[in-house]
């Protein structure tokens, strides 16, 4: 697909297919730990947030993870690759129920539910966190990108650390 117009013009069913491809590529990129490719899924500037549902529903501004630009995203990749000390882990992301909420200017508002699973060394896989993507998507350079992605997770409690993006 081409630019913004084409995007805006897509009939709902086509749109859904574009979205399914986008979310699949996004989670695939992360499940395969290609973190360096992750920022490219976002516009510049962008908003990427991971927020416990408790804060979200109470309107408390604190995020567990806050990125306001490509730079912030890159710094997170540096953290994962260079500066943070952590035990090896694998996160598997399942996304389902992609919903088209509607247009907001040139941005498409969408939502999707997710479940993430964590596997630590010598352990069985366990549920990590589950929640919802609340996104704003725009067409840029002929592809769809996230202008905004707010990930709201159901459990206030996090199993120790949340190191890889969701």
């Amino acid at each position, binding site marked *: 697909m081409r630019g913004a117009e084409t995007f805006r013009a897509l009939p709902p069913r086509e749109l859904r297919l574009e979205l399914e491809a986008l979310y699949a590529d996004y989670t695939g990129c992360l499940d395969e730990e290609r973190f360096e490719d992750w920022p490219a899924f976002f516009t510049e500037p962008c908003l990427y947030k991971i927020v416990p549902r408790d804060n979200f529903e109470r309107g408390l501004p604190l995020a567990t993870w806050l990125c306001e630009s490509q730079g912030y995203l890159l710094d997170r990749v540096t953290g994962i690759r*260079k500066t943070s000390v952590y035990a090896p882990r694998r996160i598997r992301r399942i996304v389902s129920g992609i919903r088209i909420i509607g247009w907001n200017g040139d941005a498409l508002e969408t939502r999707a539910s997710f479940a993430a699973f964590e596997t630590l060394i010598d352990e069985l896989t366990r549920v990590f966190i589950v929640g919802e993507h609340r996104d704003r998507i725009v067409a840029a350079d002929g592809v769809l990108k996230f202008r905004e992605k707010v990930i709201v997770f159901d459990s206030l409690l996090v199993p120790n650390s949340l190191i890889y993006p969701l």
Partner: protein
Amino acid sequence: MRNSRQWPERGVSRIPFWVYSDPEIYAREQERIFQGASWNYVALEAEIPHPGDYKRTYIGDKSVVVIRAGDGGVTVVENRCAHRGLQFCQLHLGHADEIMCPYHQWTYDLTGALIGVPFRRGVKQQGGMPADFSLAEHGLRRLKVARRNGVVFASFSDAVESFEEYLTPPILELFDRVFDGRGLKVLGYSRQLTPGNWKLMFENIKDPYHASILHVFLVSFGLNRVDQPNRVVIDRLGRHASTMTSRGEQKRTEDNADIRSLIEDLTLAGPAMLDPVREFPQYTVCMTTVWPNLIIQQQSNTLATRQIITKGPGSFELAWTFFGYDDDDEAMTQRRLRQANLMGPSGYVSIDDSEVMALAQQGIAHASEASAVVELDGPGWREEQAHGVTESEIRAFYDYYRTVMDL
């Protein structure tokens, strides 16, 4: 407890690993420490501004509810109905004009006093409570409460001294440094379940040594490094402490030569995230630990209380409450929220800590025969120190711990 429980000869420069895994030690900690003569952090008053506002939290294993009473006072009660023990409160934060247990609707006022028992007099002259049943004897279990500058503490013991005496002047002064009487604004919550014993969390914060070494992020940006001005304060009993440092430059010097993790050319692509303004006198970082469950965090402009909630010998919950001041302007709030990226389950700094604590528990869980070696700057400890190359806060902590635990 296994008779085998003998503290190693070298005193507090050794910590036997069984203190981190023995269920009987844990049970004794609940009794003597968390339900003993201690002041436990439970809330910020800002969380329950209006009469009837309440907050559910924990002191050790026990769930408690912090309630703003009608007179503006604060009540803390055990979250357990006086009738048949229901944990009646199931919301983190809420509001109610009175407390009603769902099971049989026994009703309590905002001070925990029992005010209503359905069918107390029976129905049609049948049943009901015995004549000698007195509401007064069946209120909720109420804790002793202390408040200072908007922070609420509670104690299961009536024997505990006043909060001010408890803290002692040097720590009190540092407490007031952040809690200076201004109104507080809660920015949000964060919580982690760390698979480690609760004492590991205190050891971590009471360990200025590690900060310079473990946290590539801190040391590279000179946010916290032993070669920078450091100050360590410990109360006379050793149970509380405070570590202060000032931000230095991102520079390799002879003094930090030992720090492998310093990356001189590390830069932020999103510098806005870390652009602190000087807010407090002298030191840019001040971490204060208040026995037995509180860490007060002031790292540049990000402020938080970190409450330690024990979850068995092998894990604890860390409950973060991030806050600012009523008089913060928008820019300052933004700053606090951005710098919060350093802290919590995804914190550039605290990830390292949560992870090493988990690794510590794994290493020690099956090594009751061995001990930690805590000799840095040892064997003793002093109430005042001008450097951070020390494990004296940890030794002080265990000096007091051994007294309370009779170990």
